[in-house]
């Protein structure tokens, strides 16, 4: 203990070279700048959402609301469409992610078994979809023909498995020691028991990471809704948000209804309400996130 303290003291007395100090300063400045450019848009959005229109217009750089207002949030909260789209997004995200995980875990576990006959062919078929997708029109035809149009299922089932996530999980399972499985089977555990009672509990980092990937994908998805949902009552939050943020040129120019006409504070309040739930989820997943990313990427 004493020796370690001495070594620490000695090393702290080693003078850093000028080049090293310059490097550190530049490093801090550069990373600080990158961090700032990443953070500022969120901050600007946050500040504007709490500003009055007058406060927003008063300055071009928004570091702090020059005139506080909850008008944007009041408007958003009073919008029935916001709440219905929130509910739809939650249903899609929770339900969709659960289905994603059930199917992905089971598929990844099976594909990680080297003694499975034809596992290479199955894996090739899965990877093939990453290189050659069906395209918009064939996918639309399938969704229509199986009767999913104007249903929230259309936003869940066509993306029930993401090949990229499947590969991450499969690789993670491949890395787990085979002895664990053998021991469990010797103790009388079933194959399903091995997966759910042995493998999954020790695969938290990968499972959590993939869960987050799926959840974020579902939460941010608007294109499927444009393609498959015509009923406004079934719009997800992101589609409702886009209708507020992006201008319909024809409607605007010719005096039609346009949410775009709402002031910037209201738009930013909508943005905040859309990103806050998913941002709140990140800290809870963060500790698994890095581990999951690196471990799943070891084997190809």
């Amino acid at each position, binding site marked *: 203990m004493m020796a370690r303290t001495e070594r620490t003291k000695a090393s702290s007395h080693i003078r850093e070279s000028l080049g090293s100090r310059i490097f550190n300063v530049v490093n801090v400045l550069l990373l600080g700048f990158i961090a700032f450019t990443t953070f500022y848009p969120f901050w600007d959005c946050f500040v504007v959402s709490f500003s*009055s*229109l*007058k406060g927003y*217009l*008063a300055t*071009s750089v928004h570091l702090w609301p020059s005139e506080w207002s909850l008008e944007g949030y009041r408007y958003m909260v009073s919008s029935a*469409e916001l709440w219905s789209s929130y*509910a*739809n997004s939650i*249903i899609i995200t*929770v*339900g*969709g992610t*659960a*289905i994603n995980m*059930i199917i992905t875990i089971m598929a990844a576990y099976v594909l990680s078994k080297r003694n499975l006959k034809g596992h290479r062919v199955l894996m090739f078929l899965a990877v093939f979809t990453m290189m050659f997708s069906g395209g918009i*029109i*064939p996918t*639309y*035809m399938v969704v*229509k023909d199986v009767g*999913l*149009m*104007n*249903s*929230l*299922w259309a936003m*869940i089932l066509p993306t029930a498995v993401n090949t990229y996530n499947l590969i991450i999980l499969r690789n993670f399972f491949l890395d787990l020691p085979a002895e664990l499985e053998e021991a469990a089977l010797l103790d009388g555990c079933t194959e399903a028991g091995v997966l*759910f*009672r042995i493998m999954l509990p020790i695969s938290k980092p990968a499972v959590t990471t993939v869960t987050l990937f799926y959840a974020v994908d579902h939460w941010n998805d608007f294109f499927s*809704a*444009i*393609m498959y*949902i*015509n*009923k*406004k*009552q*079934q*719009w997800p939050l992101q*589609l409702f948000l*886009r*209708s507020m943020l*992006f*201008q*319909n040129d*024809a*409607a*605007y*120019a*010719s*005096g*039609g*209804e*346009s*949410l*775009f*006409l709402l*002031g*910037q504070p209201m738009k930013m309040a909508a943005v905040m309400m859309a990103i806050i739930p998913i941002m709140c989820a990140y800290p809870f997943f963060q500790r698994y996130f890095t581990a999951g990313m690196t471990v799943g990427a070891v084997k190809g």
Partner: protein
Amino acid sequence: MKKNTGTTRKLASALLAAVMLISAAGCGSAAPQTTEATGGDAQPAAAAGTEQEADTAAKTDERPTIRWLTTGDAAAKAIEDGDRIVEAINERLGIDLQVEIVPEANTEKVNVAMASGDFPDIVTGAYGTSATQSWIQNGMVIPLNDYLDDNAALKEWLEQDYPWSAVDGAYYGAPFIAQYNVANTLIVFRQDWLDNLGLEYPQTLEEMKEVLIRFTTDDPDGDGKDNTYGFTAEGPSSTTGATPFDWVFHAYGLEHGDYALNEAGEIIPTFDDPSFVPAMNYIKELWDLGVIDSELMLNDTSKKEEKFYQGKAGAMQAALFRHVSRHESSLQELFPEASICYDLAPAGENGKRGLSRQGKDGFMTCVTAACEHPDKAAAFINFMLSEEGIELVRLGIEGVHYTKDGDTIVYNEEEREKDAFAPNGWAHALAWGSFFWPLESGYIPLTDPNRERALETVELATKCQVPNLVKQKTPAEISDKSALNDIFIQYFSDMLQGKIGIEEGQKKLDAEWRANGGDAVLEEVTAAYRAQETQ
């Protein structure tokens, strides 16, 4: 350990069951929005079990379903089941109307649906695109000529306003070109700045230059700072090729919005018109004087408006009509005493003036080849274009959604809210986007406090609207015009910033534009023009 595992399993099972239940509940309503017709009292069908309902159900069963997929008015209120306007249409036409308005008025969605064989009975898509062209070429939509005799409003619409839309004499749909005969864009000025400097709204290009210079140099807001400039607008549009300075080109004598005619009567691009070089010299002078927003080429609508509301610019080119009050009230957020004014665009030396180009883009509503009751579908389109239909979707049912007190309309907002009407006298969700926008129909609620002012802006802007030489878009224009406009915009920008001389730039622009498909476009446009002239 064992106990914990059991609890975890129970919890996991419960959670999964809950998720599946929620998903099933949330995803269950897959049926498209339909509305059942009633016995004529415009009320939703009552509870089951009554004779009346049995009759109604029987009637509904007999009625052909007409499914209408439209870009429509995506920002309008959702149409709920039992909407009394849809029911009234059903009752009047003997149909069971199913309306599907695609999110964001996304024309790609309509195109995908059609391309995948998901044909509705009636479809509204973007007019002047390769998609609608292919609908016609591939027989996906049918000619309406056989139904015109029974549908007077549709016949009038096509033969009076859009005779050029016929393909070999066949009308494949009802086009609606936005801003075809009407406009609402003007140059808005800060009236308080004009007053502070003792100036009037500029009527000529020379007066315009003087006002913009004084807005930039004479501290019009009186804050003692050099922080203002004269004019802002949106950057050029690669879709239409319109620039923020079309008012200068037209003041210098450019007579049409899309192309020009040379002395031999041949169609040439607008930048080959004799007005181009002197107009560019005028614009360049304004630019060099620093009286124009230096970010103008990058501005979008909201950025432009923001600069005007922030008191940076004293004039902006902007859409008015319904936006008049919004512009003024937004400006007054920071400057409570400020007001706006507008007038005709400034005239050139010979008194010529102009501002907005006549529209060439819009929508087309067609009956598809899959429609089993094309007569009913045509009747529906006719109804939406008829006085009766227009009044129904704008005002509602008399006695229910509004009453008349002489010529005054009294809106019943409580009843209107039960159906898909916008508040404050604005129309039903079916009113706009497919056949009209408020501007084209001149509709603004009688109760709107700024109605007269809004209509005045339309009158002025329409006087400044410049007609197109050729009404429709040709196939070559549809495929290449956007890329050609980009070439024009690049040269326009370079000339403005002095990267290339104006006369040299005009010559190079002409050569590059023609070499990249411009000649082919001109050839087609010339043929279309000749055909148009013989009609």
